[in-house]
């Protein structure tokens, strides 16, 4: 559980910084044992899947955009075109060891149903999402009086695909409500660095730019 176990290079999560892989991807990959069977829902350009494959993990992907899918397939990845909201129902129970939903939860129409499906088809789920409780977000709404926009979420309110923003606190409450067990939780700051674990939850919710959660089915 200790974050010190993670080999996290410090440069931030922006893909144009030094380092081959994004910090949040390295964090996610670090949670998965080699030989596992993994489904990455909303796999984008397949960067995380490539990292997983390089570590001997059997990775599959679903991606909404045709360009994303075809780019992935052209990299030799096993990716299909599909929608987290409508296509997860086609997968059988326990089909995967892990199902990953990376920076996609806030773009789904029914986050609760999606989350339930993740933990139906996967024995564990890894979910990361931008934290709307991040101080910069709060400040923009409080002082600026407009919907927040950040480096990682630059879209305006009227053309964003993100229709279901939540805070880390909100997400924790949802997990409780649907009996999902949080095995690990990590908040990353604006530079992709983990927020120290010994700080209280409200600090995470304030200074975590995104949350990464390893989830399993509750009793």
């Amino acid at each position: 559980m200790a974050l010190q176990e993670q080999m996290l290079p410090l440069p931030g999560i922006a893909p144009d910084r030094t380092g081959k892989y994004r910090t949040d991807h390295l964090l996610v990959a670090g949670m998965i044992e080699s030989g596992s069977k993994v489904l990455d829902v909303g796999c984008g350009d397949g960067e995380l899947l490539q990292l997983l494959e390089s570590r001997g993990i059997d990775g599959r992907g679903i991606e909404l955009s045709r360009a994303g899918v075809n780019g992935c397939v052209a990299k030799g990845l096993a990716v299909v075109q599909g929608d987290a909201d409508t296509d997860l129902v086609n997968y059988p129970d326990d089909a995967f060891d892990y199902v990953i939903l990376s920076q996609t939860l806030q773009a789904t129409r029914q986050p609760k149903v999606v989350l339930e499906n993740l933990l139906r088809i996967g024995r564990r789920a890894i979910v990361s999402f931008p934290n709307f409780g991040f101080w910069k977000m709060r400040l923009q709404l409080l002082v600026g009086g407009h919907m927040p926009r950040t480096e990682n979420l630059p879209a305006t309110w009227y053309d964003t695909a993100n229709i279901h923003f939540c805070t880390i606190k909100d997400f924790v409450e949802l997990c409780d409500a649907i009996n999902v067990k949080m095995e690990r939780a990590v908040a990353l700051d604006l530079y992709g660095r983990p927020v120290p674990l010994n700080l209280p939850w409200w600090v995470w919710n304030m200074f975590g730019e995104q949350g990464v959660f390893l989830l399993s089915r509750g009793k």
Partner: protein
Amino acid sequence: MTELKSIVSPAIQIDDRLHEADNPSSKVAKFGVDQPLKLDCGVDLAPFQIAYQTYGELNAERSNAILVCHALTGDQHVFNTHPITGKPGWWDTMVGPGLPLDTSQYFIICSNVIGGCMGSTGPASTNPATGKPWGLDFPIITIPDMVRAQTLLIDRLGIETLFCVVGGSMGGMQVLQWTAAYPDRVFSALPIACSTRHSAQNIAFHELGRQAIMADPDWRGGRYVDHNAHPHRGLAVARMAGHITYLSDAALHRKFGRRMQDRELPTFSFDADFQVESYLRYQGSSFVERFDANSYLYLTRAMDYFDIAADHGGKLAKAFTGIKTRFCVVSFTSDWLFPTSESRALVHALNASSARVSFAEIETDRGHDAFLLDVPEFFDITRAFLQSAGKARGLKADG
């Protein structure tokens, strides 16, 4: 626009074609009465033969063989000059040295399907019982029959597991049949622009083509060879109707629009005033030079009967339970004969079986025929899929 021939007097090379049906200008595997092909209709077909071509070298481990399955009007001449038309192989954009189906890396096999007319036993072949072409005495064949015949060929070539089975349209149906019936013999599969079952609309178009052939007085109940005739008008019309379904509204508009053929004004007649008419007539007349009308009846019928789910208690996913084969499913946006929705249904069934599957829908306005054309994104995907599968299979990378 190239010079166009009239539909009325096609230069039919009937003798060449008849000769090709029994004595193909390719390799041929003959199976005697001791090795009958057990057909779905209950008939044991024997003796029979399979005409095929190979390109590239089979490696020492016998692990680099790719079976290419041809479409309705294709044949085994994938990557060599066609013996009748003199045209280049039908997939020479995809198969060859350095191309996605790289002949310097893989051992490529393509066989003429059973029921075809280019050297595998079919209605144009000589019936040993009569010394005349089988005609309608030939038993009805199915896609599973075609694949069963291919397994016998692969056995004879000493190949246990195919590295990949690839094909578009009717070829894609064969790919799916291979994976459903012989999953352990297929390491990877690339079904393109196809479906797990033939739709009502597609059956309807096939029926139109068959009726056109049978309505031609020269068809003579299928015994046209005995009468030294050939239903070239009926077959050409069948081809014209089929060809429209292989294209798209957008592609036809882009290629021809409403442009006139070698004239400024309408002739106020039923001449081919429009370029699109002229083009279709050309497609029809050039087709009858190389294809047998009865064979067209049999092969369209085989496609109509194809329904993998029906063979597995109505549940498509059951056809692929526990399958280890790696899949790459490809469809094209403007294909209305085998629309993307059909491929998506296949992908859902494969997902339900937890199969390793990639699925790419390629954006193009060129319709169903896009799989035969120069579509770079499709080539990139095919190449990458084979390379990734090759790595998993332990094949040496190129060079």
